[in-house]
């Protein structure tokens, strides 16, 4: 009669616990990534709102506004005849920091005439976002 011994070791408790913990951490991380979508969407919406009222500032762009915090009402009060208090208050609440800097000059020749094209960089910023634009003038 012969006896055989099985030398294959079983998993110890510590190994099982460590595997379960690692698996759950990975699972939770994946779930968190999924729930991050909402945060990203809200950021996009903020940026979209910001880009809408940028149009108001860009239509009035001027070097005189450089390095100033401007509220939208002050910017457009001469252009529009606004009378509604609610609208005025809301426009006053919206503030944008305006910065306009010289960026570069491009020299061009047309019909034997030298034309200088000035390129300025406009940076608009507030808590909702930052945007950069280039203006071109002769």
């Amino acid at each position, binding site marked *: 009669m012969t006896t055989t011994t099985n030398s294959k070791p079983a998993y110890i*408790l510590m190994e099982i616990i460590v595997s379960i913990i690692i698996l759950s951490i990975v699972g*939770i991380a994946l779930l968190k990534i*999924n*729930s991050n979508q909402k945060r990203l*969407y809200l950021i996009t919406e903020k940026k979209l709102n910001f880009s809408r009222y940028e149009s*108001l500032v860009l239509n009035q762009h001027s070097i005189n506004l450089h390095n100033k915090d401007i509220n939208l009402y002050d910017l457009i009060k001469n252009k529009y005849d606004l009378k509604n208090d609610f609208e005025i208050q809301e426009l006053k609440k919206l503030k944008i920091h305006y910065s306009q800097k010289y960026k570069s000059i491009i020299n061009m020749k047309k019909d034997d005439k030298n034309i200088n094209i000035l390129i300025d960089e406009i940076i608009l910023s507030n808590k909702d976002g930052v945007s950069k634009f280039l203006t071109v003038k002769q």
Partner: protein
Amino acid sequence: MIKRGFTLIEILVSIVLLGLISLFVSSTIYQTKNNNKLFKNEVLKGTKRESFLDTLYKDILLSTDLNISNNKNYTIIKLLSNNSVYGISHPYISWLVLKQNNTIIRLESAKKIVIPISENMQKFVYIDAVQKNCKFFQVSLSKDKKSILVFIKIKKQKPIIYEINKL
């Protein structure tokens, strides 16, 4: 053959740990499901809002005749535009806010729209309720009549402000 099983303590510790982890995971799954539901609603609302803002923008931008009458919080816009949602060539379009649920509606017709709309006229007008719970809908024409300022405030949302330069 020596077969060594788990001791009672080991099994108890594993069950407790598994219980704790499953509790944590189930709460995370519930939270994620809830977040996804809210997120889906937000995206749907956002898409609907963007679509109506886009239509209003194009209506005004491509308008050939624009008439704005401002009340306290709401504006009635009547215009003749080259933009049509229903394939009408050069349609008459009106934008106004209904008292019911403060709903912004868009009217489009091949015939001139007279408000209130008569029963005979109803079959010629396409009516779209585009946004509920509007607190403020104001459209202002600039002094030089070249630009238009749109200001819309929907309940529980940030105000929507933009400027349109007429072509």
